[in-house]
């Protein structure tokens, strides 16, 4: 997908004015956020699991080449093939070549973020294959020709009404002529339409939540069962996975699985957790005859060598975006690419460039909630800070911002001047905002307050209050 991150500000502004999106985002609190909290409260070992997970993943990253080679050897032993891709282009070429060699027509996909990252659907379609997303959320987006807006719940921004319209439009020719309005009827209709696709597919593509060096397995975690049907029914299976998905053992995967569902959707475990190893065995009753893994770098080795290495621990649970006040107001599309929220604000600049996605590291209040909930303890605010300083060093932030910051630091380093300038302003602001406790509009700063509410200061500056307190003590 073409990145559109440079328009973050405009995207965000329009997102704030979309009532449907706003009510969907509000639901995150009562859904995913509350669910995670319940899981957290019910598991005294949660913090210990986070520490151990971080340790295991750091160990894996320190030895990434060796574990990838072990993994590769096990896949080959099990009869599968491993293809390496440095870039999205290479990955797409490999996938298309496999599909061509298999003389495939129909490709079905189980949801995978790496598939979005490398833009596999457009590439396959351009090469003449029919591609169908089978995760319900992704399917809805495919019909609506939209990118996902959340990494776990991709169609979170779509209303039932919009889905009803899309289904009627696209399923009418298949004999579904009634516009369904009940959720269950919509799910059922998609089940019937997609069942045919599953049965007709030549190639099934999935991602991998983890790759296991010990066994050469890929792990997928779903609630719908679409990933399993995609791995089982077609005659060829292609797994696309990033190089940072590998973990040493089945036990290591079990550790991470205890954190993944709880952090993502508030589930101790999802309905289906599947470990797939190689193609069907000689005597197996079913399963695909070919099993391919495409291992993709796409800037991850670069991250490995930089201060952003901790980002490679990410298990794509989505907790950071569920808990992010910025994501919670603007939703995923505003970020303009595949990965939204705090993790996206780190990944997008690295994958599409800081010049395109320079707004993202700044679309953060550094409140730290993301780091607090991240199951693998990624210091997201720090990583964003370090991207900001890269940006500053590359002189990519706006000249106005640079001048304002320099001016502010000049004043702030001169306490008397700072006091002189801030005290009257605070008094005025407190009077103006006294009735509501906040500002919708503030003179001279409409660039800030047009889409933000500024809390009214409580009457005096911190310094003034500090001095008052010192006087009171005496």
């Amino acid at each position, binding site marked *: 997908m073409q990145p559109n991150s440079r328009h973050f500000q405009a995207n965000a502004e329009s997102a704030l004015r979309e009532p449907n999106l706003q009510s969907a985002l509000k*639901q995150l609190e009562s*859904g995913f956020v509350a669910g995670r909290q319940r899981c957290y409260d019910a598991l005294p*070992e949660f913090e210990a*699991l986070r520490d151990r997970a971080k340790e*295991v993943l750091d160990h894996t990253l320190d*030895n990434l*080449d*060796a*574990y990838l080679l*072990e993994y590769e050897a096990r896949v080959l032993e*099990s009869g599968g093939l491993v293809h*390496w*891709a*440095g870039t999205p282009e*290479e990955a797409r070429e490999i996938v298309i070549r496999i599909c061509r060699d298999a003389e495939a027509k129909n490709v079905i996909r189980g949801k995978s973020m790496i598939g979005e990252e490398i833009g596999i659907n457009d590439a396959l379609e351009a090469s003449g294959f029919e591609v169908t997303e089978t*995760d*319900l959320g992704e399917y809805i987006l495919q019909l609506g020709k939209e990118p996902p807006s959340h990494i776990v719940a991709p*169609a*979170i921004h*779509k*209303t039932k009404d919009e889905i009803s319209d899309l289904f009627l439009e696209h399923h009418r020719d298949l004999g579904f002529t009634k516009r369904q309005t009940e*959720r269950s009827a*919509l*799910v059922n209709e*998609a089940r019937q339409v997609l069942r045919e696709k*599953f049965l007709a597919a030549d190639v099934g593509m999935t991602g991998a939540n983890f790759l296991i*060096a*010990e*066994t050469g397995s890929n792990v997928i975690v779903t*609630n*719908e069962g*679409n990933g*399993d*049907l995609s791995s*089982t029914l077609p005659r060829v299976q292609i797994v696309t996975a990033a*190089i940072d998905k590998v973990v*040493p*053992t*089945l*036990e290591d995967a*079990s*550790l991470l699985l*205890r954190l993944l569902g709880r952090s993502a959707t508030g589930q*101790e*475990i999802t*309905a*289906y*957790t599947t*470990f*797939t*190893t190689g193609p069907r*065995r000689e*005597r197996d*009753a*079913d*399963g695909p005859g070919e099993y391919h893994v495409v291992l993709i*770098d796409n800037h991850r080795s670069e991250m*490995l*060598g*930089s201060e952003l290495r901790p980002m490679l621990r990410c298990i794509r649970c989505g907790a950071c975006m569920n808990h992010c006040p910025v994501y919670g107001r603007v939703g995923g599309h505003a970020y303009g690419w595949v990965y939204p929220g705090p993790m996206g604000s780190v990944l997008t600049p690295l994958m599409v460039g800081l010049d395109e996605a320079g707004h993202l590291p700044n679309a953060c209040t550094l409140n730290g909630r993301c780091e607090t909930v991240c199951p693998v303890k990624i210091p997201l605010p720090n990583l964003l800070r370090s991207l900001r300083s890269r940006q500053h060093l590359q002189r990519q932030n706006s000249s106005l911002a640079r001048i304002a910051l320099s001016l502010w630091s000049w004043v702030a380093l001169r306490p008397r001047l700072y006091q002189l300038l801030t005290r009257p302003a605070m008094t005025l602001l407190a009077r103006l905002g006294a009735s509501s406790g906040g500002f919708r509009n503030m003179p001279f700063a409409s660039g800030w307050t047009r889409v933000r509410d500024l809390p009214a200061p409580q009457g005096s500056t911190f310094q003034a209050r500090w001095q008052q307190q010192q006087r009171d003590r005496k």
Partner: protein
Amino acid sequence: MSSAREQVLARIRAALGRGELDPARTTELRDRIAMHRRHIEPAFDETPRQRFRQKLEAAEASFVELDTLDAVAAEIERYLEAHGAEKRIATSGDELLHAIDWPASIDAQPWVAGSDHRVSVTAAYCGIAETGSLLLVSGEKNPTRLNFLPDYHIVVIEAKQLVLRMEDAWDSLRASTKQMPRSVNFISGPSKTADVEQTVEYGAHGPRCLHVILVG
């Protein structure tokens, strides 16, 4: 020009500030794998049996406990009648199911390629108490699709097959087979989705209903 594989590996090594690992270190890492070290295993108060049932029921699976395998066929008939489901079922070839004496009123056939049954009966390799998960593995007699294609999935599991955690299942699998089966499915409830307005609906792509029969 070197292959993408060599380039990726070279970039990783450069990022880690070293060359290829020396053989001693590689052996250490292989040993780490071979140790199968377990991590933190959350404690629970319930008995494994209680826990297994509770978790599955909380995930909207239905659950019955029977004393002997003899009672399984009647239970399945009752279940199908209660759901108004047809009494035509595909079974896996698992040994455990051979012991079931099907009445004439049920048409139970071992699965063959191309069959389109709406009800399947399979046997679990084991059950995981911690998460309330059934572990089903693929093989000559166990087609994976029976776990996902039908509307009703009925799983028979013997009480002695219950283990505490996923890690116990790994040990058991390692002891019983040389190689990981191609598909290892942990199933912890019927298929569901929350992709329409964040509200859970059952029967997305996999079975609409999961029925667990614990024997013994």
